[in-house]
C-alpha cells in the first residue's frame, strides 16, 4: 500500500518554510500563490532569507508580506519600484524584489515602472498580469484585451474609445537598464519551473550588479473573469497568450525576441 512510503526520507516536495503558515487570501486557483512560492523557493535555495527585501503592491497581493517570510514593505499604489529603489540604494548588499499587478504596475505606476527599468536598478520586478483589476472588482486595466468584458467595460473593451491593451513588458525590454526580461505563466508544471529559473537568474543578476530583471507572469483572475480555475486557465491560453506571448524577450542584456 502507498501509505508506507510516507516518511521524511521520501519527501520530494512540500511547501517551503519561507512561506508562512497563514492561509493565502487569494481566490481558489489564483496564480498569485504559485508565484509567491516560487520566489520563496528561490530565496530558500540561495540561502538569502536574511538578505532579501520584498515590496508588496496595492491589489490582491497587498498582503504579500503576510505570506512570504522575508522582510517586506508595502508601497503606495504603483510606487513599489520607487520604494524598491530607495531600499536597494540604502542597502546595496540586499536582494530586492518588487511584486505588482497590472493595475499597479501598468496603470497608476507606469512612470515608476519605466524610470526604474531605465535606471537599471539592481532588483527583480515581478509583474502579475491578469488583464484586470482583481482586488477592486474586475475593472478594466490597461492590459484588458480588446473585446474583453470587465465590470467597467461590460460590453467588452472598445479600443476606439478605451485604447489598446498595453504590452508594457515589450516597452521596457529595450531600455538599457533592463538586463533580463521575459514573460511566463504558472498554470502548468513546466511553466512554473521555467518561471523559477527566471527568478533565480534575476536574483543572480542583481548580485552581480548587472541591472534590472523584469518578469511578467500572465495569470488568471478566476473571480474577475467569472470562470472556474481550469476554465480560466484554458481561456488564458486561448486569448491572452496570443497577445502576450510567453517566452524570453531579453536575456543577459541582449534582445532575443
Amino acid at each position, binding site marked *: 500500500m*502507498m501509505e508506507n*512510503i510516507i516518511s521524511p526520507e521520501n519527501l520530494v516536495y512540500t*511547501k517551503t518554510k519561507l512561506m508562512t503558515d497563514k*492561509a*493565502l487570501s487569494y481566490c481558489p*486557483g489564483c496564480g498569485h500563490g*504559485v508565484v509567491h512560492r516560487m520566489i520563496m523557493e528561490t530565496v530558500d535555495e540561495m540561502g538569502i532569507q536574511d538578505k532579501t527585501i520584498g515590496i508588496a503592491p496595492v491589489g490582491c497581493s497587498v498582503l504579500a508580506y503576510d505570506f512570504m517570510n522575508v522582510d517586506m514593505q508595502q508601497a503606495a499604489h504603483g510606487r513599489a519600484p520607487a520604494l524598491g529603489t530607495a531600499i536597494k540604494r540604502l542597502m546595496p548588499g540586499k536582494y530586492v524584489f518588487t511584486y505588482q499587478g497590472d493595475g499597479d504596475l501598468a496603470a497608476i505606476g507606469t512612470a515608476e515602472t519605466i524610470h526604474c527599468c531605465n535606471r537599471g536598478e539592481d532588483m527583480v520586478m515581478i509583474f502579475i498580469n491578469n488583464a484586470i483589476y482583481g482586488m477592486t472588482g474586475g475593472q478594466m486595466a490597461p492590459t484588458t484585451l480588446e473585446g474583453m468584458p470587465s465590470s467597467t467595460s461590460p460590453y467588452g473593451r472598445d479600443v476606439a474609445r478605451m485604447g489598446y491593451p498595453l504590452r508594457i513588458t515589450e516597452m521596457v525590454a529595450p531600455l538599457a537598464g533592463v538586463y533580463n526580461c521575459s514573460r511566463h505563466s504558472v498554470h*502548468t*508544471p513546466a511553466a512554473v519551473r521555467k518561471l523559477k529559473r527566471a527568478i533565480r537568474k534575476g536574483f543572480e543578476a542583481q548580485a552581480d550588479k548587472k541591472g534590472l530583471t523584469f518578469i511578467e507572469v500572465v495569470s488568471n483572475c478566476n473571480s474577475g473573469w467569472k470562470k472556474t480555475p*481550469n476554465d480560466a486557465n484554458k481561456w488564458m491560453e486561448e486569448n491572452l497568450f496570443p497577445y502576450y506571448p510567453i517566452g524570453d524577450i531579453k536575456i543577459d542584456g541582449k534582445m532575443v525576441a
Partner: protein
Amino acid sequence: MAKIKGTIVVDKEQCKGCEVCTTACQFKCIGMSKEVNGKGYRYAISVNDDCTGCTNCAIVCPDGVISVYRAKIDSQ
C-alpha cells in the same frame, strides 16, 4: 525489479478545491472529495495507485497544500 512509486498528502483543511492539480496530473491520480472541509470546499484526494511522485500537482497548487513522497519499491 525496482519500481518508482509516489504518493501525495493533501492538507485538506487548507485546500480550496480549485482542481488545478487534477489537470496537472498526467496519470489522473487526483479527484475531489465528496465531503467538504471546514472552509466549505471539496478537497483534493488521490484516487488511484498510479502516482510516480513527479511533483507536478504540488508545483501548480496555488496554496501549496500538497506534499509529495517518492520511493523505489522492490517488486517481484
